[in-house]
């Protein structure tokens, strides 16, 4: 399961690569739709500050 570690900067880079449209920003957090997520890890690898992890 993809989780956000708590230091996300809300830049949207991960959203731009998500093939499943499973990511979305709220006003101050990143929402992860675990149902839609296929755990392809593209978001984890692209985040410029390693704010995502697959746990």
């Amino acid at each position, binding site marked *: 399961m993809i989780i956000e570690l708590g230091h996300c900067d809300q830049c949207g*880079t991960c959203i731009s690569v*998500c093939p499943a449209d499973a990511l979305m920003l709220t006003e101050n957090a990143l929402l992860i739709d675990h149902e839609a997520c296929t755990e392809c890890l593209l978001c984890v690898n692209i985040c*410029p500050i390693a704010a995502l992890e697959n746990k």
Partner: protein
Amino acid sequence: MMEQTWDIIIVGGGPGGLFAALEAARAGKKVLLLERKREMGVPVRCGEAVGKEDFANYVEMEPRWIGAEINTFIMVLPNGKEVMLKRDLYSGYVLNRDLFEYDVAARAADAGATIKMRSNVVSLIRDAGGNITGVRAMELGREREYYASVIIAADGVESRIARQAGIATALKPQDIEPCVQATVSGVSLPEQALYLYVGTCYAPGGYAWVFPKANNCANIGLGINGKYSDKNNTARLYLDRFLEKHFPQASVQRYTTGGVPVSMNLKTLAKDNLMIVGDAGRMVNPLNGGGITHAISSGKKAGKLAATACDSPNKMKDLFARYEKEIAREFGKNHEHQYRIKDVVYQLKDEDYDRIGDEILKIDVSKRSFLTIFKHVVKHKPEFIIDVVKAYSGI
């Protein structure tokens, strides 16, 4: 739940959305711009460099937007040597983008546009027939609905609005550059120059930039190609290494994070009553990552055409087709070439950069125009021209 009706709704208040709002409001339309952030122009996820002429073509300049004036361009090679181009070959600004966006928002509001901050658009609203009629937004935990004849997606790199309209906007990892930038103080640079550090040793598949601003401050940032990025090789780690090695005296005032789309432009830039501008339409120059002026230009065009479409809805299809054509003509085609050249350039090894750089250094600095450089590079590395020709012709 509140309902409101507008002529044009714009999602996103970056340069693309702001200029769309300004033009549409000037054309007398009822315009609503929705922006998720708390403060217009902040945070600045950008190196803030624009070409002087290019920018002046689109925008009436305010002095307070100028963070620095640039008249030189310096490429720093993997071996550390600096290759300066002929002076005034490049002239540009490093903007104060926060002030720029704040002021353009004020101009749009003066022209009659309504701007709402802390409004996060979550989805499109469709009627029973499947037509897009508006947007749903979350505002301080409350859901709001807004209706309009035309929707302009100016939501930047995320590009979720166009995606919801059925346009494939997701990028492949090799088509995005994850970036980190530190705005630092305490660096005095010898030239009013844009410094680009090229080579895998600095930033694989991208480059590091040092753009000066007033008072010995500078934007120092770095983007790597997405295919080289992972948890243990993030843009941030490369930037930390870069700063430690090249600017150990610098104090970081702020960090920002961001992604630069370096694909070709989206082919579909309008669908039904939705138009796409700026980064959401992937309108960045894929070779150098510059996208401010493309966002402005597309925003202005979309704002004007959307206003016309509100007056004659039966012509909307033609007007939107014209929008796609105009964008392709202005920079879309050029970006296709840049995209192919990028593939060639980023295959160069650090030794290649060093050798090409050494060749350029043999030319007197006052003669280092693009043409003379190109001639020298070709003489030294003839296979390079074949690659470039291939890139241009799309073979």
